[in-house]
């Protein structure tokens, strides 16, 4: 059982208040999407959950324990974060990269049987086993994205935080990645939090949405609860129409820009 409790979290960059009194709870087996306009604080929130940023106010509990009370090595076993950038040492092979993700769990200097197994398993799940010996800079965007997800699995964390998993990907890969995330979240009962720009995709693949606007939580809930024309108009300054498609999907149709 994994539970995240975020309470009154406020994060500042100097005098800029990036997040203000953010409060919500997440539970396992669900994909939560953080949406909102540019500069709303999506990446900031994700980084704060990843413990890369420290809130000036508020607290985050992981299963009742304060996030900041964990030792870094403990935290690494529980939370895995993938930022928007690609890995910065692109001449390395996929295997090298994967191996590092085992470090929180590896005892001793070299890897054990279990570590190798885990890597194999993770690569299989993302259908990238054949890429194990390729260099990172020899992968296509879609392949790289799958590798990054595999790395999150290898790290065997209970909480997965992915910033913009679908950027730079074409439609096929966008759907593929999000479906992958959804599947592993369900199968392994993880807590998955992602940030998304595309509201359509958010509605399709997220169990829960957090709509941020200027650092404040505008709305939380199921996609059809959050993605209302009122909310979207208020936060994105765009007038839309939201239609329920017969297949059960939400369709968001932009109508016109709102004057600010």
């Amino acid at each position: 059982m994994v539970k995240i409790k975020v309470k009154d979290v406020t994060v500042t960059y100097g005098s800029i208040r990036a997040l203000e009194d953010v409060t919500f709870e997440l539970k396992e087996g669900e994909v939560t999407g953080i949406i909102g306009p540019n500069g709303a604080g999506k990446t900031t929130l994700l980084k704060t959950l990843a413990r890369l940023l420290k809130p000036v106010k508020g607290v985050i509990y992981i299963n009742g324990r304060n996030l900041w009370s964990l030792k870094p090595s403990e935290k690494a076993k529980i939370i895995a974060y993938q930022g928007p950038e690609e890995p910065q040492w692109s001449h390395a092979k996929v295997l090298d990269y994967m191996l590092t993700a085992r470090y929180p769990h590896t005892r001793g200097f070299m890897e054990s049987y279990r570590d190798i197994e885990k890597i194999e398993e993770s690569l299989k799940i993302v259908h990238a086993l054949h890429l194990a010996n390729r260099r990172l800079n020899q992968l296509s965007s879609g392949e790289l994205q799958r590798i990054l997800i595999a790395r999150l699995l290898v790290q065997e964390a209970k909480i997965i935080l992915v910033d913009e998993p679908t950027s730079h990907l074409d439609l096929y890969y966008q759907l593929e990645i999000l479906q992958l995330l959804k599947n592993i979240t369900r199968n392994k009962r993880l807590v998955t939090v992602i940030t998304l720009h595309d509201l359509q995709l958010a509605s399709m693949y997220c169990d829960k949405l957090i709509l941020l606007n200027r650092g404040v939580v505008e709305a939380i809930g199921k996609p059809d609860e959050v993605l209302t024309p009122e909310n979207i108009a208020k936060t994105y300054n765009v007038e839309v129409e939201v239609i329920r498609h017969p297949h059960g999907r939400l369709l968001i149709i932009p109508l016109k820009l709102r004057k600010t």
Partner: protein
Amino acid sequence: MVRGKRGVSINIVAVLIAALVIGIVIGYGVLQLTVKPETVTTTITKSETLTESKILTTPLPTTITETKTITELETKTTTVTRTLKPEKKALFDVLGRKIELAKIPKRVVSLAPSITEILFALGVGDRVVGVDSFSNYPPKVVELVKEGKIKVVGGYWAPDLEKVVELNPDLVIADLGAHYKYLAKFEELGLNVLFVKGGNAVNLIDIYNDILLIGEALNVTDKAYELVTKIKEIIGSISGRLAKANVTQRKVLILLGPPTYGLWTTGSGTFIDELIRICGGINIASKYHGWIQISREEILVQNPDIIIVTVMGTKEDAVKVIEEIMSPEMGLDVNAVKNKEIYVLIGEADDLLCRPGPRVAEAVKMLASIIHPEVFGEVGREDVVSAKQLS
């Protein structure tokens, strides 16, 4: 195949350490292994009567009394007094190091041209087995090198240690200016090295001391005194004539190498500076210390009467240098240029000025003629190219 949960294979650190240790230990340990020591332990307490080797003092006593206390394994103590044969002597080089020469050195290596000149001037050239590549005087040296009787052991700045050791010398004479950094290595190699001031000589006394020191080391102290006295006489007579002629001192600028290499000159604290003074000149760079570069502004301000340039090259090169100095781009609007008192020293003249060796007397003669031709006559040397010669 895979073996259990921990460790797919052996711990890498162990393998690495093994490989590294094997490699380094092979080489390093081989170096450290020595012949097995003898079983008798001897403690030697020496009491010697020595006077420090100074110039113009009485020679060293030829006997050294050594008291030896031998402690054998049964801790029986016996005292043995022994008089060392007069072949053994000890002297102190310019670094204050005590050099013990077991016998009169028969195989000597010189690491500097000035040292080679001293050795040959003292008449012990037959004992020289190695010289540096710049040693070219007396001409006999060049001959002997060609015949293979003397070997070249590298350059002045970088002696080839292997070649030196290969020659199995009794004594190596090194120049403090260039070879100080080899000291530790010399000692490790077990070479008997005597350091003389050489390029570090600040005045003529240093040069005389070098000659006397080498003379003593080679057991030709008398010859050394003779040589020094002769040099002093020549120089003395020159300064005497200058004093009698009551000349006005003339301002001299020395340039080492053509201006394109930079305006290098000799300030105070160099023997060249003293040479200039002795020859009735004023070194315009004497406010500076050591071997330094001078600026054009300073040259203009000082307004030298004479410019003397040393150039390693031919007469054509010398002419080019004169033209360069006199050219308007150079901007040296000084007396020396106006009066065409520019002298380029090539070949042997160059060596004469720059070597702190026995030919300083020649150098003084040459310089005196350049600076005061009214007393000594024009310098009529082939290897001194004067601006006046060019029309």
